[in-house]
């Protein structure tokens, strides 16, 4: 009987905690939601929401994270179907295009004038701005300067890496110095959305019409990828990576966490990733914050398109829902965006807390992290592949399907012909 009494006490405690949980909800302020698809800054955004809610009495922002491994579009489609669209949704540029009918044009907002040039292009549809550029991001090979200085026996100059031969030479030198050349973290989004899209960008060479032609020929099935010189060059570099990958023996078991650890500790010289990885690298940093980017080179001719450039693009756009949120909620959503751009605490969130490169020219805070600085320097030098709205025409599951094909190739389960064929097959059936 004693057992029974303890059990019923446990149950009572559980029930009571429930009641308290339920009673804690208060109403009367404008409740809005913000869908966050940058999982790595969830904590910072939650913090920002607290600050914002304290500064703006009538509004309460709740940050909803988009679970890892799910695309924002996937989550948005469930939310719209369930009648619970978030007030503000941080999505990719392509999703803005796909969901335009749900969103409110934001032309009259002050920040439109302060947005960095080009950052609104991919979300401007028929002259209407449909989203707020959340950040500028860049990706390429991140190098650990200390490892490379040692390998080169002097100061390493990243601007010398403009050909595949130079990249291979750097790999060899790192290996000769007793370290591993690089680590490839094989997440489908990294391989599919970032690494592979470098290839599309290099084919289109910054010309919108060329991108349109490329994608429509892929959809029509008239494109022979395997015969395309840019694809061949891209793949040759990929083969090089595969060869020098420190996790070659078990390439697919590597998780994202392994990248910052190996690079930060100086076990490898390079890691293919973007500037958002800084907080994780910083945890392991042994190189005195000396890191930077080199490009994904596509050929042995330094003057070929893209060989001096890292990819920098307006990443993540915040759109405002107009179909399931009230006028008052929309106004509150706009207030939150303005707060991010114009209030000191908002700017602080973007630049210092979340480590982002803001897409607004009025924000003058210095970027503290070395990766962000490297991207900003590339932008200033004009050595970036321009951000065009190439992602806008990509099918929603492109990253996932192409990413899987690349994983297969990376681990040696498919040859080059199969890879090209799989990607072509995918495009002809894609929505």
């Amino acid at each position, binding site marked *: 009987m004693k*057992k*029974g009494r*303890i*059990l019923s006490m*446990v149950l009572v405690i*559980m*029930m009571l*905690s*429930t009641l308290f*949980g*339920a009673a804690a*909800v208060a109403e009367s302020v404008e409740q809005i*939601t913000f869908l966050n698809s940058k*999982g790595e800054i*969830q*904590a910072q955004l939650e913090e920002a929401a607290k600050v914002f809610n304290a500064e703006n009495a009538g509004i309460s922002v*709740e940050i*909803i*994270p988009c*679970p*890892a*491994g799910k695309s924002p579009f996937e989550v948005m489609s*469930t*939310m*719209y*179907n*369930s*009648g*619970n669209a978030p007030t503000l949704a941080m999505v990719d540029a392509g999703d803005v295009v796909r969901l335009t009918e749900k969103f409110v044009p934001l032309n009259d907002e002050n920040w439109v004038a302060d947005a960095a040039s080009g950052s609104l292009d991919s979300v401007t549809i028929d002259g209407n701005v449909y989203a707020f550029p959340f950040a500028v991001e860049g990706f390429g090979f991140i190098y650990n300067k200390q490892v490379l200085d040692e390998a080169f026996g002097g100061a390493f100059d990243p601007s010398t890496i403009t050909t595949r031969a130079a990249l291979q030479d750097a790999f060899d030198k790192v290996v000769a110095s007793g370290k591993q050349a690089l680590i490839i973290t094989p997440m489908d989004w990294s391989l599919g959305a970032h690494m592979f899209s470098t290839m599309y960008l290099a084919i289109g060479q910054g010309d919108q019409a060329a991108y349109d032609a490329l994608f429509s020929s892929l959809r029509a099935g008239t494109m022979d990828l395997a015969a395309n010189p840019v694809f061949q060059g891209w793949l040759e570099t990929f083969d090089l990576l595969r060869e020098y990958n420190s996790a070659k023996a078990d390439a697919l078991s590597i*998780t*994202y*966490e392994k990248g910052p650890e190996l690079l930060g500790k100086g076990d490898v010289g390079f890691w293919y990733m973007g500037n958002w990885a800084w907080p*994780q690298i910083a945890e392991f940093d042994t190189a005195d914050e000396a890191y930077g980017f080199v490009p994904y080179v596509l050929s042995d001719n330094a003057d070929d398109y893209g060989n001096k450039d890292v990819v920098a693009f307006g990443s993540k756009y915040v759109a405002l829902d107009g179909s399931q949120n009230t006028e008052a909620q929309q106004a509150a959503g706009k207030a939150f965006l303005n707060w991010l751009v114009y209030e000191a605490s908002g700017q602080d969130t973007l630049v210092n807390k979340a480590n982002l490169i803001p897409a607004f020219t009025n924000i003058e805070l210095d970027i503290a992290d070395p990766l962000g600085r490297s991207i900003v320097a590339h932008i200033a030098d004009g050595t970036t592949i321009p951000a065009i709205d190439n992602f806008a025409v990509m099918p929603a599951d492109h990253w996932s399907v192409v990413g899987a094909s690349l994983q297969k190739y990376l681990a040696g389960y498919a040859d080059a012909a199969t890879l090209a064929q799989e990607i072509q097959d995918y495009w002809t059936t894609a929505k």
Partner: protein
Amino acid sequence: MKQKERIFLTLKTLLLSVLLLAYLVPFILVVINSLKPTREFLENPLALPQAINFSNFTIAFDKMNFISGLSNTVVITTVSVLLIALFSSMAAYLMVRTTWKITRILFFCMVSAMIIPFQALMIPLVRIYGSLGILNNQSTLIYMYLGFGAPMAVFIYHGFIKSVPLEIEEAAMIDGCSQVRTFFQIVFPLVKPISFTVLILNVLWIWNDFLLPSLVLIKPAQRTLPLSTFYFFGTYTVDYGLLMAGLLMTILPVIIIYLFLQKHIIQGVMQGSIK
């Protein structure tokens, strides 16, 4: 002969105990690693913690909003299973005691529906309830559980009530008891053992269910434990000690209840399968 048999039995017990240990190794490792900082974990996931440290728990408790997840799960599970047991036993009672066409058809439909995979229902469910604007609501989730839980519960009650003798009820009816009163005063107490089975089977299912709540509940504040654990994993992938503490906290409430009720739970599962 006797002694040989005893040795054999002891050996068997020993062997089974070792096997059980192997079965439970995953849980043991979770416990060990939940007490370690991540660095220690990376060095050796099998070693015992160098110092007992509960900080992982306090952090995970906070970050995954444990209390809210637990209370949501408790409310949704409790309300759902009690209502399922109540309504299903009533329906099964009428189905057994009458030979009407409609109850027979209903029973047949429900039993056949048991083989419909959830995947065939999830897209239309989201569509229908979404367009009515009542998704993202715990009551809707409970309502859905009442529907999904009904067929099996009715089936189990149906089998049991069939074996309840009619005489007692008839006597009560002759005494002027209404059908409803007869049910609650005489039949319902008689089917108590099987009600317990129905409750247990449904608790095991609803407490741990993932896909349906992941489609219905979107706001973090409404999440059940399996959901908050999953999302927690997505957000803090690097910190293993923290993750293990989160896992352990999710499992713990069920294990505690199991320690008290294991006999009944095992009995319940047995009963559920026989009927």
